């Protein structure tokens, strides 16, 4: 028996003794995506109508409602839905509990609704005297605790973790910190506590809350997932090299310094400048190394012809580079706080939402294919995942989306609120059109009729997946 035969024999023996990695479809991921897209469209509709910044101050309740509709209703739900499916892929272990995402979603959605009503109450737009903020705090803490428990148990069972999963762990610390501060703010704003330290934390802690959420939770997690997904979809080598590990350590350090340093500075009534500036430098270092790694992945890919999702992810990465450049320039000019809304908009809409929409285009097709054609694989000819989508039809909407977001960023930077509304109207049109493409994919509208309805192939549900255990 030669070495190759021995390896194959060992494989036979090892599969008898161990469960080889195969993960099931996440049943509720599509529901998270649908709720997220609806929140995103609603938020942009409100922005087009002139609701919130720049037609109201950054700290106005309307702006805060809008920010949370995007950060929680769109980006966090999108990320949670994606993580319930892809953390198991990252660590090659099944999700700890495949039923828990539904009650989690219910908690998060009702908590978000209560939070939005709390902001409307704060702004005097509704006169109900119900305790919206304490209810929001309770439900959002519960919802994210369930997220942390489910993903945390999945990750814990898979130690030692590969690098992309370690980014996700740091991201989970980010959401824990964000929710911790957010719950304190909600309890203070709702009048449930008048402890002076908590009031001080609410008055000065908003930048830490925002950095932990946008930087720690959303950005670090998206970075980790993109290391793996881009490598998978482009047939590029999976990276675990010095620059990737350094990006992880610098990113984690940035979050730790911003959160711990920031909270300590507030408690001791020190200035926030030092911890936040240190975190910004660490974060920029992490982004530079991450950018270098992404460039390497695109150059080292084996698939010469890129699919739409990978091409559009490059525009999202470009938005992140632009946002980082704006941070550097505005720090140097001393007007970071003036232009912070434009930078946050570019991060949320260009980087995070752009990457999210690009990856949704692939993930929805992939999960729909698995659900519909996976069970008949080997029994009949099946289409490819790419046969479920029509890229030439979708590309113009993605192009419009990114152009609109970049125009909107310029409008905020140069203070043209009317242009910003017009740009947001265009990004809303593009978002709705992309959502329609996802709907068509889910409904198999673009698959040849004969293949779509062939015997044995099941038509997927729009909002949930019929799961199978691998």
């Amino acid at each position, binding site marked *: 028996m030669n070495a190759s035969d021995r390896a194959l024999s060992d*494989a036979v023996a*090892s599969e008898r003794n161990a469960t080889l990695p*195969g993960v099931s479809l996440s049943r509720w991921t599509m529901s998270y995506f649908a709720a997220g897209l609806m929140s995103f469209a609603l938020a942009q509709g409100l922005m087009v109508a002139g609701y919130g910044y720049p037609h109201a101050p950054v700290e106005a309740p309307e702006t805060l409602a809008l920010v949370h509709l995007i950060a929680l209703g769109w980006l966090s739900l999108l990320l949670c839905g994606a993580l319930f499916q892809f953390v198991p*892929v990252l660590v090659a272990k099944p999700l700890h509990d495949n039923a828990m995402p539904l009650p989690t979603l219910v908690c998060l959605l009702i908590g978000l609704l209560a939070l939005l009503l709390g902001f409307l109450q704060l702004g005097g737009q509704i006169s109900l005297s119900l305790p919206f903020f304490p209810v929001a705090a309770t439900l959002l803490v519960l919802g994210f605790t369930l997220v942390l428990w489910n993903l945390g148990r999945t990750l814990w069972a898979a130690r030692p973790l590969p690098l992309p999963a370690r980014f996700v762990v740091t991201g989970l610390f980010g959401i824990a910190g964000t929710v911790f501060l957010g719950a304190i703010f909600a309890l203070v704003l709702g009048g449930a506590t008048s402890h002076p330290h908590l009031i001080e934390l609410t008055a000065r802690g908003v930048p830490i809350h925002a950095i932990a959420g946008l930087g720690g939770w959303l950005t670090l997690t998206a970075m980790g997932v993109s290391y793996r997904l881009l490598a998978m979809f482009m047939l590029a*080598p999976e990276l675990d090299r010095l620059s990737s590990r350094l990006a992880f350590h610098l990113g984690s350090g940035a979050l730790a310094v911003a959160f711990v340093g920031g909270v300590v500075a507030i408690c001791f009534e020190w200035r926030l400048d030092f911890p936040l500036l240190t975190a910004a430098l660490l974060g920029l270092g992490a982004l530079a190394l991450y950018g270098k790694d992404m460039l390497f992945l695109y150059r080292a890919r084996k698939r010469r012809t890129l699919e739409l999702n990978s091409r559009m992810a490059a525009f999202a990465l470009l938005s992140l580079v632009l946002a980082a450049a704006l941070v550097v320039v505005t720090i140097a000019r001393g007007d970071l706080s003036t232009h912070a809304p434009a930078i946050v908009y570019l991060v949320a809409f260009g980087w995070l939402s752009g990457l999210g929409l690009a990856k949704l285009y692939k993930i929805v097709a992939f999960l729909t294919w698995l659900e519909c054609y*996976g069970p008949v*694989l080997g029994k009949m000819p099946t289409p490819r995942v790419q046969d479920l989508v029509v890229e030439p039809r979708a590309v113009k909407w993605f192009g419009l989306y990114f152009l609109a977001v970049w125009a909107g960023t310029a409008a905020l930077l140069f203070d043209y609120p009317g242009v910003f509304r017009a740009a947001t109207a265009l990004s809303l049109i593009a978002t709705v059109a992309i959502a329609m493409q996802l709907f068509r994919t889910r409904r198999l509208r673009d698959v040849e009729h004969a293949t779509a309805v062939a015997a044995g192939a099941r038509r997927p549900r729009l909002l949930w997946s019929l799961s199978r255990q691998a």
Partner: protein
Amino acid sequence: MSAALNDGLPERIKDALRLVIDPELGYNIVDLGLVYDVSVDDSGEARVIMTTTTRGCPATGYLKDGARDSVEATAGVTSVDVVLTYDPPWTPRMMSADAKRHLGIAEGEGW
């Protein structure tokens, strides 16, 4: 089973396995190099040793079941055992020339 029927059975099994595609790459698992070994004994009991392009892929179970179903339908096969392995891990170098051409990968490229 007669020797005549068994002749060329591994090749017929490989042909049957070409019905199974990797959904992401859109090409059959044999030419992608995901099937490491096909063996069949005199009684028609077949064994397929295969892998997936990435560990933890959500399609893993479907690919394994699809391979089993396609081989079971091959004349001369009495039973089939599909074994999954990640040793050695798959690389693009394992693809056939046709699969590489289909995906636009130059001959010999890989990691």
